[in-house]
């Protein structure tokens, strides 16, 4: 999802088609859409974060830092930001833990079986997150099968929905395919020969895992974690449906401010904040990668 390397092809000078004019003409449509749908809106959003919100939803064009200072001066928002980051991190870690065994198993399987499993991994990705969240609502409800099963065991049934637990369960599942596929992409370095070499040198399975498999899969882990963190921070449908109105996250807040409260400048400021967090996550990712290398 996140690799930002240009696919390489050998350089050739191709006499025709190579004119800069042709190239520019071929790039024009994508550049146009990029400009209209991406650059312009994002710059405009940045600008919007310096406007003033009027009561009732109006916007006044000015240049004020009030939104920004208001955000950091307000414990509610500070807590919201911290909460967003910790919840997203928890989701990321949970996703990693449940995805890793699947990815490893998939990496080791071959042929049709592997194809089949890959389809299984991807199929949820192709099913709308709305639908899957809907499935979780049915599963996690107090009358749902999971709570009933736990209750049947004689344990006081925990609340699985309308709280952080529910959001983490739902989002973990929703992000699993991304994590698994990223891990798989990063498992390229994991040559089975290397594991065999470790065993032949006397490493039992557990040591082989810690000393060889895990370090070698770190790039995949880093990639998957970055991706899942990014997706977790920006998801709002699942927290909205499973959060019971008590989970305030950056994404739900952006949505509420934009659609319900109609405070566009504040929504814009929060969005910029999300971008800043992403920048930080990307930087962290780059650092981790460099450390691994």
């Amino acid at each position, binding site marked *: 999802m996140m690799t930002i390397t240009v696919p390489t092809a050998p350089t050739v000078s191709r006499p025709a088609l190579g004119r800069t004019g042709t190239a520019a003409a071929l790039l024009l449509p994508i550049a146009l859409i990029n400009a209209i749908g991406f650059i312009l809106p994002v710059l405009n959003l940045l600008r919007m974060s310096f406007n003033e919100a009027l009561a009732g939803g109006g916007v006044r064009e000015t240049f004020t830092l009030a939104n920004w200072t208001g955000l950091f001066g307000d414990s509610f928002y500070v807590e919201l930001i911290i909460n967003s980051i910790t919840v997203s991190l928890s989701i990321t870690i949970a996703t990693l833990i449940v995805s890793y065994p699947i990815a490893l198993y998939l990496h080791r399987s071959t042929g049709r079986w592997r194809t089949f499993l890959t389809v299984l991994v991807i199929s949820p990705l192709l099913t709308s997150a709305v*639908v899957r969240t*809907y499935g979780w609502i049915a599963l996690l409800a107090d009358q749902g099968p999971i709570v009933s099963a736990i209750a049947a065991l004689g344990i006081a049934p925990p609340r699985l929905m309308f709280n952080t637990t529910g959001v983490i369960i739902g989002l973990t599942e929703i992000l699993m395919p991304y994590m698994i596929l990223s891990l798989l992409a990063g498992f390229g370095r994991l040559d089975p020969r290397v594991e065999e070499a470790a065993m032949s040198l006397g490493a039992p399975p557990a040591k082989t895992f810690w000393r060889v498999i895990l370090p070698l899969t770190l790039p995949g882990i880093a990639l998957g974690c970055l991706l899942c963190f990014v997706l977790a921070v920006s998801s709002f449908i699942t927290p909205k449906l499973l959060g019971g109105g008590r989970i305030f996250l950056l994404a739900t807040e952006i949505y509420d401010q*934009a659609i319900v409260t109609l405070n566009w400048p504040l929504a814009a400021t929060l969005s910029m904040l999300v971008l800043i967090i*992403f920048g930080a996550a990307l930087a962290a990712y780059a650092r981790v990668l460099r450390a691994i290398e």
Partner: protein
Amino acid sequence: MEDTNTSAPMKLLVAILFLFLLAPVILVVPLSFSGEQILSFPPESWSLRWYAALADNPKMISAFWTSLTLGVIVTAISLAVAIPAAYVIVRMRTLGSTFLYNLFTAPLLLPTIVLGLAILIIFASVGFLGTFTGIVIGHLVITLPYALRVIATTLGNLNLACEEAASTLGGRPLTVFHRVTLPMMAPGIVAATALCFLVSFDEVVITLFLTGPRLTTLPVELFHHVESRADPLVASVSVLLILLTLAVVMIVDRTIGLSKTFVK
């Protein structure tokens, strides 16, 4: 790798995790056959009433057709725009192609909620909201990077020697492109097609900002439905969507590897 490496407990663990992964997708199937008025699992009675209700729901059906048309149009434009762009970026690496590539795929790095809000604010001022054009552009913003990435990757992995061979055999550049380059990119193009279509067909966040009373897409309609009613109608829609998805997945898998399509 056989025999020794995957122990029985590991297999069991993997099976459980797969169950977790697939639980909500699997669950909607029985839910869709519920005979209840209200969502609950397990349902107390079974029926096909929610499929019948779906057939009677003009809004849902029209939203489906909107999504389908939208998907087709967005996919067609994405391919038409991304193929030449990918060609220029991969094959003529003089124009700062790394920068362009990063710029054009950057929307993928942006959370859709931010992108949706950004587009909403711009489109609100030009009256693009709730219009087909507006949604098409909104979708293109995210499908194009996918298309570009998949096609550029395919192009980058193509054996350049084949094109060179074609030109030594007397093929002019355009002939070479359409007789050799394009057919060899077929798997990538199929992948990009499937991906663009599915992304457009499933996109909900950005679309949520862009749809209006006159025009709504299936995922948005589903979201609204889940927000306003608790009946199992959504389950029956989901089952049909899952079947559709499986069909597409099968086609893609027949032509190229699946995992290659999504994460590089």
